[in-house]
């Protein structure tokens, strides 16, 4: 009985480990959103725990988006982190960052923290399917590697940021109403339907908020 338990426990642990370091690391799916003309791609390097994501697409903006998305489903509150670094040159406003999204529809409700190619960080969101995109862009000086953290607490989406490898600092928050479950993941957009851009994501984590004590 004891052995059986141990075996089934090991099996469960192994399965959990496999799920965590699957083909896409902690995520389960990757796809182009908004059918860009040039196909994107995503690779997870398990040894480096690094995601290499290539995306095309006109933009994540206005009333419809085009980009490459790597995601998993999640319900409730969570914290997602990533270190975001662009590879190569591209449009000033190419984007890489963390996105929470209602669905894979091109005009879905979303909120994201995007780092632009020129170094400008922005908190951007679409309140309702098919609505216009809202943005709040931060002051910046030059391109950089950023540590990005997105926290969802109810309707609040918090943006944390740092540049020098230090702990990300709270910058601001907005409010966006999602239905559970949502998609949480990484996004790359070239800001040019005729181009492809690549970004590297490391130190990536998605942590659900622990359920309240005493409640299962």
């Amino acid at each position, binding site marked *: 009985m004891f052995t059986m338990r141990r075996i089934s426990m090991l099996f469960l642990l192994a399965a959990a480990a496999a799920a965590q370091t699957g083909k896409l690391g902690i995520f389960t799916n990757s796809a182009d959103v908004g059918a860009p003309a040039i196909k994107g791609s995503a690779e997870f390097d398990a040894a480096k725990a690094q995601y290499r994501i290539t995306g095309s697409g006109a933009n994540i903006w206005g009333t419809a988006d085009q980009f490459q998305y790597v995601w998993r489903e999640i319900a409730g509150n969570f914290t997602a982190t990533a270190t975001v670094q662009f590879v190569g040159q591209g449009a000033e406003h190419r984007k890489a960052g963390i996105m929470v999204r209602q669905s894979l529809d091109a005009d879905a409700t979303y909120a994201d923290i995007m780092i632009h190619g020129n170094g400008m960080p922005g908190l951007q969101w679409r309140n309702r399917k098919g609505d216009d995109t*809202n*943005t*709040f*862009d*931060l*002051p910046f000086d030059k391109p950089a590697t950023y540590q990005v953290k997105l926290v969802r607490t109810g309707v609040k989406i918090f943006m944390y940021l740092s540049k020098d490898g230090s702990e990300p600092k709270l*910058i*601001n*928050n907005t409010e966006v109403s999602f239905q559970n479950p949502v998609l949480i993941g990484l996004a790359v957009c070239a800001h040019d339907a005729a181009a492809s851009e690549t970004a590297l994501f490391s130190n990536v984590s998605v942590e659900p908020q622990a359920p309240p004590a005493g409640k299962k």
Partner: protein
Amino acid sequence: MPAANSDTISGMRKLVLVWLLASAAWGQMGKLGAFTNSEDIGAPPLKGAAEFDPASGQYKITGTGSDIWAKADQFHYVWREMTGDFAVTATAKFLTEGIAHRKAVIMLRKTTDTDSPFLQLAIHGDGTPSMQFRNNKADITNTIDFPTEGPGIWKLKLQRQGTNITVWIAKDGAPLRELGETIKQMGSPILVGLGVSSHSQEALNTVLFSDVSVEIVKPASAGAGKK
């Protein structure tokens, strides 16, 4: 003799100058200073008020109303109409205690309708700065809240250049620091002014706005405002 002559001329000059200054001051500082109108938006049950003191250049604005939030607003608004690109600065001090989220704002507003599109830089009574906006008439309100720094005297600056709207804040005499910018198509003409909401229909809150300026600024460089 020449001395007397010169005195007369100098006296004349001085008179003309005083007259010119007075008329300029009068033009810029009517009953409501840099602004032309003052009213309660959204018909709150209590009445708000606004006073301008030309000697100190200060505006004392008393506002009531449930909030500037969601799909309709209640607050006291002191405004003028403007077109094109401009910057507004004001230093806000709450003179009365009240609800943590009572608001003092610099606001751009399409109309005086309660559910009009608007964009504002707000300082809350508890010292939380926010930029908030309603994109379409009767739409919900969006917010970007910044970390609370505690109650104080807050200098606020909001600048519009084309579709770029940039905001700055400073607490207790510190130099202005830029929070960031958004992109909004608000059009011209637009109402530009100061507002106060008590965040309660049963309360009145008074805010003293000093060092208020409304300046025309140069248009943004080409390409700005494009995402």
